């Protein structure tokens, strides 16, 4: 348990080791949600010590509360939980829960942070996570994790996958603290782990940088009293509905009404509760609610096909990657309605407790309808803790309480050395948060490059014994887990039975096999009895296998010589009343584990030297930012730019929505890149060929002019090849010089063009090519661009009339403020329906450019004589993408942009190790988003480059050349491109570093020539036979 070492390590840390001016190779991450977790993992991988400080009892944050995630409908906990375990296991991440930052002294590079750590009242070193205390505790409280819909005890673990998996006593609820009696938990804890004497501690840590990732609070829906939240039981918040949907939630995943437990068949969602609500001081869009509501609809219908779903909304903001397609799909499902009308109030009907909603229909009439359940799509806001943190650290926040950042440095706070990630920097979804987290990690790594590796530890192990020639000598250790196993399974007879199994030379029972004293006994037994295979029968290997593998490694055994039998979660706990049968099942599970262990072979330790340099494809803002970040960390970088100029599409931007001068920003970055000694820029360069794998790539680039080829050796690739502004169609673009794209208009404004001087009426048309059948995605930036340009036009000439024809204004996040400002300044917005886009024509007589378009809210057609017509042309993928994709063996999505490894948690990685992604190549995005993503890609790349050699061990595929026919089936099914076919020898060759050991190849190979070490066909078959 990572926390076990917490306070001791902290106290031992030599505060004086770093002088006041030298940099400290450690980073404090405040907040243990998905952002904090990602930043910590990245930093640890880059060679920094991390203190991950979390206020609640477990890391995991809001994401742990979610049921599924959009747009992939992934199970949230399934994809998060491995990251939690990675954090817990990482020797360089110290998780400090129930703690907050109280004070920070010092400056960038060398801070002293004072933490206040609340007592847990449970000794983490003694606790085994058996859960008996929670079972016996008689005091209940509303579960925070279940948003008050379920109960927890006064001693509790917030959720079953919590890290650390150590319960905490809530002194506000515990009878011992309130009345001085009870102590039931103490009485029943067989390990004596309960410790009522713990008190609040003050802990100091020395760090070089700080990353703030304190997350958000959902908007308190009771502040919109018209919706009756808190008064009507069947009105829930979005987060509560997540818990309802969750199979592990208070209703077991049944979509039922809290008032009577009956299935909810007619469900309404109300959007923008606490968002886009300047009247309640929330002049921003929460950026995620449109999509989470669409996800709720999908999930509710998946649980019960009969669910009728109605979403009451304003603009639908489907601006992200894959969002528009997702929204289209959901809105076209049978039984699903999207109604553009924010609801004024909810009435609870007497008797049925049904909820009456009145809305304004598209037919221009009021309608009333009864629903079983209403979900309020609440927005997000910085919590009071975040504001306090910012104040204590002297970090500026904006009017809404979000951390102040600038478009040119989207993850830096106002205080040097302190960075920000996640929703505290402004409303953001998970991928954006994770991206910011990696980006912040990258900036911290840049700042502390000199101190990298200074405080990290690698565990030392004795030299590994070679047991390959030895006869198996198996030791079996059976855990009673207090009474958790022992009460149901007859452990003594199980041990007797184990001794009868072939090759078992030792079997014993332990009260707790995972305790420190038992691990000493295991090491002794291995040494004294010559044991060369170990089996532990205890709890689930998912949490404890790494611990035992580590134990046998300390005794000089290869970790793959270990097997586990799960006789707790999958035996004693699920057959509590059938002792005899459970014992027999446990015996068979042990027999199977012994059979696997008998055939266990020690795995090789791979070590692959890393070429510690990078190749960045694309010299736009994203590519240059990524390159600079890596170079600042000391890694040589090559930039291959297709054109003769650095800067990419940003060369056509003049200023940002916030009024920053983009041209100056581009110039400054180009100058820094060009003068950096570690960066080599190749202009007019085209990639011809790319070979190799993570750590050792070899890429051929050729000059576009001279065709001269050049070979570059490098360890990682960052794809930052950008995208283009497409041609708008359907309007007299190209035929009439008054018709421009947004980028052209920006240029016109910046250069004070002739058109502009005479213009009295400027018309914008949104979605001129996006969100269409043949291009079914939102180009994300156009609405913001339009608002920016409209405001600039009004600034230049307040008398000018500006009309915007739009479908949904995608001014998500904090840019909602600019949209409001544009309305205030008199820009007129007219909504049109997708089936009736505006028309533009030139009057034959007067040569006037006439735009006619729907104004849905007035129900009539608006006619405008335009001096300038600006079209929001789509952002389109580079024509080069398909070629690059096949050359680099990385996928494209259906729109032609590059597809990341995982839309939520690996937004800048590719499935192929060592290749990363950022900028418009990934999809449309604004400049600040591209910059954050570029920092993130640099962080991910640096975690490879920070290692001198890549180490890999264990369960990877290996080929028996004798049996292999070189048919290539394994290569075809391998999702990681870890297999190549040696065409000469006609055999498959596995790259052990790239292979993840999933076994798809082994299952596909009929001759059985390819197999997974540590999970071989032979072992599985032996286990089956041992039944």
């Amino acid at each position: 348990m990572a926390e076990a070492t917490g306070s001791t390590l902290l106290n031992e840390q030599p505060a004086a080791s770093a002088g006041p001016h030298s940099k400290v190779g450690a980073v404090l991450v405040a907040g243990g949600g998905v952002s904090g977790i990602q930043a910590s993992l990245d930093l640890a991988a880059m060679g920094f010590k991390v203190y991950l400080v979390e206020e609640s009892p477990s890391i995991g944050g809001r994401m742990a509360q979610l049921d599924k995630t959009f747009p992939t409908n992934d199970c949230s906990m399934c994809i998060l939980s491995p990251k939690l375990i990675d954090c817990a296991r990482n020797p360089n991440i110290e998780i400090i829960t129930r703690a907050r930052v109280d004070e920070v002294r010092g400056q960038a590079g060398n801070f002293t942070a004072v933490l206040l750590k609340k007592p847990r009242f449970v000794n983490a070193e003694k606790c085994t996570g058996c859960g008996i205390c929670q079972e016996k505790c008689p005091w209940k409280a509303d579960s925070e994790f279940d948003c008050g819909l379920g109960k927890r005890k006064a001693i509790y673990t917030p959720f079953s996958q919590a890290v650390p998996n150590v319960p905490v006593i809530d002194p506000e609820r515990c009878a011992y603290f309130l009345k001085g009696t009870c102590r039931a938990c103490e009485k029943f804890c067989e390990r004596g782990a309960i410790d009522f004497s713990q008190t609040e501690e003050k802990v100091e840590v020395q760090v070089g940088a700080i990353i703030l990732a304190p997350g958000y609070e959902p908007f308190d829906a009771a502040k919109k009293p018209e919706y009756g939240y808190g008064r009507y039981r069947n009105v829930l918040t979005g987060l509560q509905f997540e818990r309802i949907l969750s199979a592990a939630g208070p209703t077991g995943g049944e979509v039922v009404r809290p008032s009577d437990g009956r299935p909810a068949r007619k469900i309404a969602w109300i959007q923008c509760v606490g968002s886009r609500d300047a009247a309640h001081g929330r002049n921003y869009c929460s950026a995620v609610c449109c999509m989470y509501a669409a996800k709720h609809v999908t999930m509710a219908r998946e649980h019960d096909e009969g669910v009728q779903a109605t979403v009451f909304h304003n603009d639908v903001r489907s601006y992200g990657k894959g969002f528009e397609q997702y929204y289209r799909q959901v809105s076209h499902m049978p039984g699903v309605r999207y109604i553009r009308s924010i609801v004024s109030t909810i009435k609870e009907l007497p008797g049925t407790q049904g909820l009456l909603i009145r809305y304004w229909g598209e037919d221009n009439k009021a309608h009333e309808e009864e629903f079983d359940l209403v979900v309020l799509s609440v927005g997000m806001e910085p919590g009071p803790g975040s504001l306090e943190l910012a104040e204590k650290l002297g970090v500026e926040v904006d009017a809404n309480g979000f951390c102040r950042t600038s478009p040119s440095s989207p993850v830096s706070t106002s205080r040097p050395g302190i960075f920000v990630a996640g929703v505290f920097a402004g409303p953001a979804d998970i991928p954006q948060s994770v991206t910011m987290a990696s980006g912040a990690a990258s900036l911290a790594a840049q700042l502390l490059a000199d101190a990298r590796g200074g405080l990290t530890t690698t565990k030392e192990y004795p030299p590994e014994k070679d047991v390959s020639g030895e006869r198996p000598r198996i030791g079996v250790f059976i855990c009673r887990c207090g009474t958790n196993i022992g009460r149901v399974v007859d452990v003594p007879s199980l041990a007797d039975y184990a001794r009868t199994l072939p090759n078992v030379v030792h079997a014993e029972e332990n009260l707790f096999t995972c305790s420190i004293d038992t691990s000493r006994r295991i090491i002794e037994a291995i040494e004294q009895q010559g044991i060369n295979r170990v089996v532990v029968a205890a709890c689930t290997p998912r949490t404890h296998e790494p611990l035992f593998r580590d134990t046998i490694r300390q005794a000089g055994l290869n970790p793959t010589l270990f097997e586990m039998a799960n006789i707790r979660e999958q035996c004693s706990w699920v057959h509590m009343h059938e002792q005899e049968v459970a014992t027999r099942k446990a015996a068979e599970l042990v027999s199977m584990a012994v059979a696997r262990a008998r055939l266990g072979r020690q795995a090789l330790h791979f070590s692959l030297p890393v070429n510690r340099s990078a190749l960045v494809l694309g010299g736009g803002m994203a590519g240059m930012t990524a390159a600079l970040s890596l170079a600042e960390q000391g890694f040589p970088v090559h930039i291959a730019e297709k054109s003769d100029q650095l800067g990419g599409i940003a060369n056509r931007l003049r200023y940002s929505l916030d009024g920053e001068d983009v041209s100056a920003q581009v110039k400054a970055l180009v100058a820094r890149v060009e003068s950096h000694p570690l960066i080599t820029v190749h202009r007019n360069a085209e990639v011809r060929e790319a070979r190799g794998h993570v750590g050792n790539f070899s890429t051929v680039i050729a000059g576009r002019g001279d065709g001269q080829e050049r070979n570059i050796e490098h360890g990682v690739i960052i794809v930052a090849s950008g995208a283009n502004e497409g041609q708008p169609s359907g309007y007299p673009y190209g035929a009439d010089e008054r018709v421009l794209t947004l980028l052209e208009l920006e240029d016109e404004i910046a250069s004070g063009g002739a058109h502009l001087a005479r213009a009295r009426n400027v018309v914008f048309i949104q979605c001129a090519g996006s969100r269409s059948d043949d291009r079914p995605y939102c180009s994300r930036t156009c609405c913001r661009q339009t608002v920016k340009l409209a405001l600039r036009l009004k600034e230049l000439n307040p008398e000018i009339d500006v009309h915007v024809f739009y479908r949904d204004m995608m001014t998500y996040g904090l840019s909602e403020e600019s949209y409001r400002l544009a309305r205030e300044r008199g820009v007129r917005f007219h909504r049109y329906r997708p089936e009736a886009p505006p028309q533009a024509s030139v009057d034959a007589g007067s040569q006037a450019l006439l735009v006619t378009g729907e104004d849905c809210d007035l129900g009539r057609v608006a006619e405008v004589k335009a001096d300038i017509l600006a079209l929001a042309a789509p952002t389109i993928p580079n024509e080069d993408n398909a070629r690059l994709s096949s050359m680099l063996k990385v996928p494209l999505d259906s729109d032609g942009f590059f597809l990341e490894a995982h839309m939520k948690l690996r937004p800048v990685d590719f499935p192929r190790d060592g290749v990363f992604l950022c900028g418009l190549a990934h999809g449309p995005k604004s400049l600040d988003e591209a910059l954050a993503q570029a920092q993130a890609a640099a962080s991910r790349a640096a975690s490879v480059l920070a290692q001198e050699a890549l180490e890999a061990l264990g369960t990877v595929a290996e080929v028996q050349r004798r049996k292999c026919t070189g048919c290539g089936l394994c290569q075809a099914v391998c999702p990681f491109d870890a297999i190549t076919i040696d065409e000469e020898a006609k055999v498959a060759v596995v790259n052990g570093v790239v292979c993840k050991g999933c076994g798809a190849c082994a299952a596909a190979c009929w001759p059985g020539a390819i197999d997974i070490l540590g999970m071989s066909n032979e072992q599985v078959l032996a286990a089956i036979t041992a039944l």
Partner: protein
Amino acid sequence: MMSGLSGPMAANRPQLDRIRGVEGLNAELCFSCRKCSAGCPVADDMDLAPHQLVRLAVAGPEGEALRSSGIWLCTSCQTCTTRCPNGVDVAGVIDALKQRAVASGVKPRDGRMLAFHRAFLDDVKARGRVHEMSLTARYALRARRVPEGILLGIGMFQKGKLPLIPPKKTATRELRRLFERGKGK
């Protein structure tokens, strides 16, 4: 879908003296979420719904809004104003439209409510305090119709609810000055 209004609007016809600019009403901030119309108790009876009135007040053609009978149906219950996420004083915008319609002599499509308001103020001006019977009579004259509620009124009268004798006139001279001051503007 394209109901309520029809026919084109020339969006860049110059607008005179728009409601935008009237301080505190914030009409121009509307983003057409329709919450006002969804919550309005009488929106269904209006020819133009509150969100449309706000929109017309900002972007015109304002004449359309001034002629609307919808503005005269507003009960001033303030539900729209109270719940508007943009802080638009919707009821205030509608009041401003009514006042402007009166000031510019625009006749509503349905004149009943205007007749009632006029009758009411006539009675205030004449007596200082309103006398229900006299108000009803004034309304009948102004609207040139027998009030629909006349039978009910008789019932109420029989119950002793409606006093026949008007209260004595109060401060009428002072009130006349207030009325005249208003007119002078």
